[in-house]
């Protein structure tokens, strides 16, 4: 299971950039961002410019835009981010099918994106594909939540996190990836290299 840091509720742009940079530096798999309709990919592109490894999932209102316009914005984001873009699509199924086709390099209603996405196909998720949890309790409680979703074979988990990003990376990324996560190694790391 891969963890996705939720930046949608962080109101300060500079704070979103700081958190994204730390997540990038500490090996968090991805982040989810949004914005007012039309500004979602603007926000995502700013995050892409200050990160190198983080997957950037854009949560969009698919009904507020022409599907071609939306797909063009995501394709450009995928080029800017060097294949790190993905989409959470909220909207009508017909619009979603069109966006999915366009972001796979296929024709939709006679239109083919140019440029195409950098990836073979930009992943397009429904909101229900990515459960969300608030990990604001203690570490032990957060670990139990992670175990529960991982054991249920959840591929991605969006997490809200208000403690140091390095702590999320140290204690929960490995746990999300493996049922054999050696907690004692993370605990020992806290003693050797305490997280401020």
């Amino acid at each position, binding site marked *: 299971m891969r963890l996705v840091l939720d930046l949608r509720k962080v109101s300060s742009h500079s704070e979103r950039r700081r958190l994204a940079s730390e997540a990038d530096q500490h090996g968090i798999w991805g982040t989810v961002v949004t914005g007012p309709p039309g500004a979602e*990919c*603007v926000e995502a592109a700013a995050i*892409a410019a200050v990160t190198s490894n983080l997957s950037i999932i854009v949560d969009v209102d698919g009904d507020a835009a*022409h599907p071609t316009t939306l797909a063009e914005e995501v394709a450009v984001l995928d080029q800017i981010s060097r294949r790190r873009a993905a989409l959470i699509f909220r909207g009508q199924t017909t619009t979603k099918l069109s966006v999915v086709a366009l972001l796979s390099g296929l024709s939709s209603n006679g239109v083919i994106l140019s440029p195409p996405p*950098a990836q073979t196909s930009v992943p397009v998720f429904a909101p229900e594909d990515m459960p969300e949890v608030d990990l604001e309790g203690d570490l032990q409680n957060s670990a139990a939540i992670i175990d529960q979703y991982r054991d249920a074979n959840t591929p991605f988990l969006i997490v809200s996190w208000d403690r140091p990003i390095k702590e999320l990376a140290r204690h929960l990324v490995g746990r999300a990836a493996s049922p054999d996560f050696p907690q004692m190694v993370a605990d020992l790391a806290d003693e050797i290299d305490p997280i401020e």
Partner: protein
Amino acid sequence: MFCATRTPLRGPHCVMDMGIGLWCLQSTATNPRSFEQAYQELVEDARLAENNGIHSLWLSEHHAYYDGYCPALLPAASAALAATEHLEVGTGVLLLPLHEPNRVANAVNLLDAQSQGRFHLGVGMGYRPIEFTMKDELISNRLQLMNSGLDALQTTVSAPTWVGVSSEKAARRAGRRGLGLFISGAFSRDVVNGLIAAHRTEWETSGSPGGTPPPIGLLRNLWIVDTETERRKALEWVRSSYLVYAGLGWGADKTGVDFVSQIEASMDEVERSAKVGSAEEIAEDLDGYDVDLVVCRVGYDQPPRTALVEVIERIGQELLPLVQELGVQR
């Protein structure tokens, strides 16, 4: 309320600003490259421009063209702004009738806030029928869409707003609204002066909306060279770059430039209006224009990367000080 510019660019003691353009992020038949490389180079070029004191970098938009001409300028602008601290970034131009105005307003306001006021919104109407068809619009409605789009932006956008024009009629419309003018690089000096006069007169007779004369931005085809051989090569780059417009089907009205039906004659016209020479020669030429901002059109598809980097450096280090000195003297 629209603002044509955050602060007046030009006053009695002010000088012309120098920008670079147009970054189109293409992979053309004349110079194929990867799109990822093009977008990475946009960020690198933005940093390079900033480090050389250049005022702004301008992007350009088209849709569904074979070469990937950038269809989504606002995310691209966001990346360039996020990678820099002082450089201003503008759209030259965003094709407003092809977008939902409320989405544009939301994106522009976020860019404006994120960049501490370094974003400029330039808008135009568009002219390719296929681009309107793919957005389920009729090209015959483009003026109506443009006007309703500007009406919507007027109450919602705070970033400096410019209008790209290719006719005096369009220049007058921009003047009436108190919006800045962004003039194409292919026009002769007479055409440019005609557009500026039409814009200013209409602004004045419309009650001077905004109170301050809206700024004039001028795109100019130019390249700094030292030898005749370099000059000839640069002129070929300028000429061949307009093959893109021929392919796009651009035929500007009543300007002497029609890339659709008279490609060779039009490219000759472009060559005549281009300024390729020493920094001193170019500065003297630019000093003859009554404009606030010159956008040096150097984003051609043919020059090797080393040549582009060199000309950006020379614009900042050689041309900019000369232009500013002449402005102060004037």
